[in-house]
């Protein structure tokens, strides 16, 4: 279980690459070809991580952009970040 710190920035692991499908994304590790399936929300989180946004900044941005989904955005962002960190796709920049 990964403990998330939402005020930190994350680094994208350069070992991971993205394969785009119509509305979905496959994030995969080039070293062992293991893939992580991303829905649109998770992919948006991934793109914002690439822009060096912290977890809280990502939540603020998405809540502003999608006010009707405010109730679930924090949970969705947390789930996406947790899965990225657990599979090694994101590296804690404080490490």
């Amino acid at each position: 279980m990964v403990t998330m710190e939402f005020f930190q920035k994350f680094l994208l692991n350069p070992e991971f690459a993205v394969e785009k499908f119509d509305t979905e994304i496959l994030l995969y590790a080039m070293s062992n070809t293991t893939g992580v399936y991303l829905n649109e929300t998770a992919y948006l989180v991934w793109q914002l991580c690439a822009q060096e946004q912290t977890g809280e900044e990502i939540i603020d941005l998405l809540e502003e952009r999608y006010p009707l989904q405010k109730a679930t955005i924090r949970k969705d962002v947390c789930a996406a970040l947790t899965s990225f960190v657990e599979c090694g796709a994101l590296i804690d920049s404080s490490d």
Partner: protein
Amino acid sequence: MIDFLCCDLPADSDARVQASYDLMCTGDEPMLSLWLEGTCIYSGNCKYDLAYALINEIIYQCIVDNSAGQAIHAAAISSTAGAVLLPGKSGSGKSTLTTWLVSKGCNYLTDELVLLGEGEQRLYPFTRPFSIKSGSAAVLSSLLKYAPSEILSGVNGFMLPHRLVNPHFSAVSPAFSLILFPKYEAGAPTSLIPLPSALGCAQLMECYVNARNFQDHGIGQLADFTRNTPAYQLTYSSFTGLYELLNDSFSELFS
């Protein structure tokens, strides 16, 4: 034994020798052994275990430095609609499902390995006898009719010539029509769930065995396969209702 295992593999007299194995049979109660360049790979008195070791060596040699296409740990069958790929790790139930599909009239291609043609929407199967694990034998018993002399059996399972399940066989390299990810789950209701292409690709990657032979790991090619081929997760615990479900969903599968 070589004929039993390899009679349906394509013969190519111009192919280079990838590796050379020695099969030994010594003594009145034959002691069998398999050797590769002085290293003993199998030694014992069970023909099934020897055949199992040998076919795994042949498969390994076929993929170890093969960059002609993506090698996928998968079963495959074909019908008039084209090829159906059944990717899965050991224990996923792909051999059991494939045996059942072939018993229902589908054309057997392989229960273990396919090569996806580089730049083409076509598969090349490694056609070998069915390899049935002991745990699946009871499930398949009603489908299989054979004399003990027609199979190779051991404690862990048996190998069965596919023509004993369906005498009609056509050695083909068909175009794709469908990807079915089999999932045997005791007690689970039979279900067929369509998978988004990206998820299908992620699952296919788990069965992809020669990625390191490609500079870009061949993921783009794998993704193209899943973009162009519908993929489903098929969960089953018995064959009851399976024919109706598949026939309703894919009407040309059993035609």
